[in-house]
């Protein structure tokens, strides 16, 4: 039981607990907090996989900006606890066993297909390599994403304006 395995299981348990809590919580703000816990656990897993730049970007952008946007919208819309309707109760009773089946099937096939893979030996300077790849091979998609963000910015501004 190496230290790496212990850390992996701790972070994986945290991620799964956060995901289960996301589904089970009744108030959207608690679901948002659970999702932030999942993202933090995933950032820890990226660090374990030696992808330190991706881990930092995950915290700064995903957990630190996108989820802040979610929390703001929940605060602005004054979202309350979810109501229990007939449809949702039926969905719960039929859905939980079906979810279990989906999880078991997915996990079984993924585990069987990838059991033969082994990890490559350690390398250094991941951030440097990511930067080289991003600005040389993937330079065109990189510029396209900047246009995408501009479009999203304009769209969000137009959508959220009140009719005046």
């Amino acid at each position, binding site marked *: 039981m190496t230290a790496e395995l212990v850390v992996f299981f701790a972070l994986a348990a945290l991620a799964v607990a956060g995901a289960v809590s996301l589904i089970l919580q009744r108030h959207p703000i608690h679901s948002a907090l659970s999702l932030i816990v999942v993202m933090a656990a995933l950032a820890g897993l990226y660090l374990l996989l030696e992808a330190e730049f991706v881990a930092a970007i995950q915290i700064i952008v995903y957990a630190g900006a996108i989820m802040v946007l979610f929390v703001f919208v929940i605060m602005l819309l004054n979202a309350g606890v979810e109501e229990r309707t007939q449809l949702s109760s039926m969905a719960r009773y039929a859905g939980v066993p079906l979810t279990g089946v989906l999880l078991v099937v997915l996990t079984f096939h993924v585990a069987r297909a990838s059991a033969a893979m082994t990890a490559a030996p350690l390398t250094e300077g991941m951030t440097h390599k*990511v930067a080289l790849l991003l600005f040389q091979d993937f330079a065109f998609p990189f510029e396209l994403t900047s246009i995408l963000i501009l479009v999203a910015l304009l769209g969000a501004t137009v959508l959220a304006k009140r009719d005046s």
Partner: protein
Amino acid sequence: MVPISFYLVLSAVLFGLGVAGFVFKRNILTVFMSIELMLNAVNLAFVAFSRALGQVDGQVFVFFVIVVAAAEAAVGLGIVIVVARNRQSLNVERINLLKL
């Protein structure tokens, strides 16, 4: 050394939980967050594969997925705000008619 299949199994579990949340939750914001959970699970699979194959392309893809998720969250939440203002409710069952 943690076998890569462990990471892929975790990614599959998180993806399955995201699908469950997407299908069964009634609040539109929680549905949106389940979509983000699915995207995160896929990111984990990308990074795990990038480590297993020794190439950095997986991490570059994760970068793009995060950027696209940011743009999608911004526009999606704008739509949610407009819909919530018009229907006065965040319940998905009340937003199932095209006409107001």
